[in-house]
């Protein structure tokens, strides 16, 4: 087990290093930020000075080397636009994004799994069919369009919920969170719902598929033959079996959710890292883009690792695979 974890860790570091190179080179190709930051009337001498100040006049490989050196110390450069360390900028905005991502995951789980169970148990009833049709709808709706409709309905028409921004925050373990205040919840509601839609549909379909397969299995037959109540058969026997793959999918999708938050944050002007990324791309604030990508890559790698470990812990067949069968 330890050897496996160590190997995964090593692989992850390799991927991280590779990604950092790709990211750096890729972002370098985006464009010359000097054009944006310097007065267009400026003459060449001014440009050169600005480039030198930002270290942009050195050859690519040297820039990468410098970058790596600084990165090892946790310094990923300063934002061209805000003039504070890029990593600090990212970390400032990360809690907002994480809060949004986690809120939407919770919504998706709480609504999605029961609905999926229902649809899987009664696949040909009108309830089952409408849940499936609903999930196709949820799947098909482009996130940004749903956001628009939500704003149209709840902000413009009814005026119940605010269309943008984050609400009041309080500090929880040193991190500012907004879901503990009513105002915060009002601001969080629509973006979280919007983001949850895709995950919700996915969960409903996964749970339904898993349930449909699970109830055909022999152990369900045997559980019923034992005279167990339907509630126990579904709630314990079926659920425990389908939860294992579902939990891993939720974990793996977390990365996707964080990425999709880019769109939601843009629509609802939610002050998270996604919005920061879009703005940085438009302003060619390279250090921020690089820092963002690296943080995201690291996050993904960590999530993948955790999910792998979690899976092996949850499934007793994997966890106890070393036990020799006895006669």
């Amino acid at each position, binding site marked *: 087990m330890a050897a496996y974890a160590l190997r995964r860790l090593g692989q992850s570091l390799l*991927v991280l290093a590779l990604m950092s190179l790709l*990211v750096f080179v*890729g*972002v370098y*190709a*985006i464009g010359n930020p000097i054009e944006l930051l310097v007065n267009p009337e400026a003459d060449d001498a001014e440009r050169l000075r600005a480039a030198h100040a930002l270290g942009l006049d050195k050859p690519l490989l040297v820039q990468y080397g410098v970058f790596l050196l600084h990165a090892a110390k946790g310094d990923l450069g300063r934002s061209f636009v805000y003039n504070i360390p890029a990593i600090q900028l990212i970390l400032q905005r990360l809690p907002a994004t994480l809060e949004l991502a986690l809120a939407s995951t919770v919504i998706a789980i709480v609504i999605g799994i029961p609905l999926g169970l229902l649809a899987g*148990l*009664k696949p040909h009833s009108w309830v089952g069919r409408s849940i*499936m*049709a609903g999930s*196709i*709808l949820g*799947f*098909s*709706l*482009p*996130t*940004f*369009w749903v956001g*628009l*409709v939500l*704003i*149209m309905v709840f*902000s*413009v028409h009814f005026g119940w919920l605010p*269309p943008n921004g984050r609400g009041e925050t309080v500090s929880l373990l040193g991190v500012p969170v907004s879901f503990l205040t009513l105002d915060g919840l009002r601001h969080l509601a629509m973006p979280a719902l919007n983001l949850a839609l895709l995950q919700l549909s996915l969960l409903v379909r996964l749970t339904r598929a898993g349930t*449909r*397969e699970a*109830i*055909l299995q022999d152990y*369900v*037959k045997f559980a*019923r033959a034992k005279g167990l109540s*339907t509630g126990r*058969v*579904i709630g314990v026997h079926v659920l425990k079996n389908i939860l294992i793959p579902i939990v891993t999918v939720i974990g793996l999708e977390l*990365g*996707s959710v*964080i*990425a*999709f938050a*880019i*769109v939601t944050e*843009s*629509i609802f002007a939610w002050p998270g890292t996604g919005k920061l*990324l*879009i703005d940085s*791309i*438009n302003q060619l604030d390279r250090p921020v*883009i690089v820092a963002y*990508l690296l943080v*995201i*890559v690291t996050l*993904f790698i960590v999530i*993948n690792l955790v999910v792998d470990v979690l899976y092996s812990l949850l499934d007793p067949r994997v966890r106890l695979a070393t036990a020799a069968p006895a006669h």
Partner: protein
Amino acid sequence: MRIATTARPALPAARLERVESPWRRLAEEFAASRLALLGLALLVLLAAVAITAPWIAPQNPYDLAQLDVLDSQLPPGSHSLSGKAYWLGTDDQGRDMLSAILFGLRISLTVGVASTVAALALGLALGLAAAYFGGWLDALIMRIADIQLSFPAILIALILLAALGQGVGKIIVALVTVQWAYYARTVRSAAIVERQKEYIEAAKVLALPEWRIVLGHLLPNCLPPLIVVATVQVAHAITLEATLSFLGLGLPITEPSLGLLIANGFQYLLSGKYWISFYPGLALLVTIMSINLVADQLRDILNPRLKR
């Protein structure tokens, strides 16, 4: 609540009442779901509309001469001074929304289908190669595919487009880059299973040239899962393109897809002029939904594990 768990009675094997072509059977099973048929019908309709857009649209939304800026931001159902009807209203430039949507649909569908086909071809080639030749080629291709698939498509596409800039060709490149791995992986899994089957050995023993074995024997048997993936991916491609355009990174303003139309109308949402964003969004929604309806049914009938 009833749970239908008991097995069906075992029917003795090898009882073929009718021998029918697999395509016929596919069509029959597909038609069993009314929803899927609806999806297919909608899809055909949308495709027809998109192809004939230049001829059936009331107005050419790119021809600046036809636009009258005095007609801008008119609600649906209103009329221009010259008596033309704006069924779905106009945008901030006085463009007829209906025409804009028809042309936008055309572009969205074109980009979606083109990128899917290209990604399919690429992924198919790489996946088959990986499965058939195995070894380091297999490991390399799959490693790249795995790493790429572990990152969300939207992120990769974003960065790529930020580097490449705007344009139809560039967005197709981005979409293909993001999608090829699905096909490669699907094809490879199916091909690896098929490769071990006896008919491939038989073909090798007959010393058939390798390309014939791969194309003639391996490929047709890997098709079912590929069909399902491709259909779903068209919807993904269209959505992704729309999202990217919405974020300002996709197609240029000269060739607005539905996503860009929605983005243009966004600022007018809060002042109640919803139609500029809403109707393009509706068109997008219907397109994606019909594709998904079809894909769902295909997936159900091609899934061997649900056949009991």
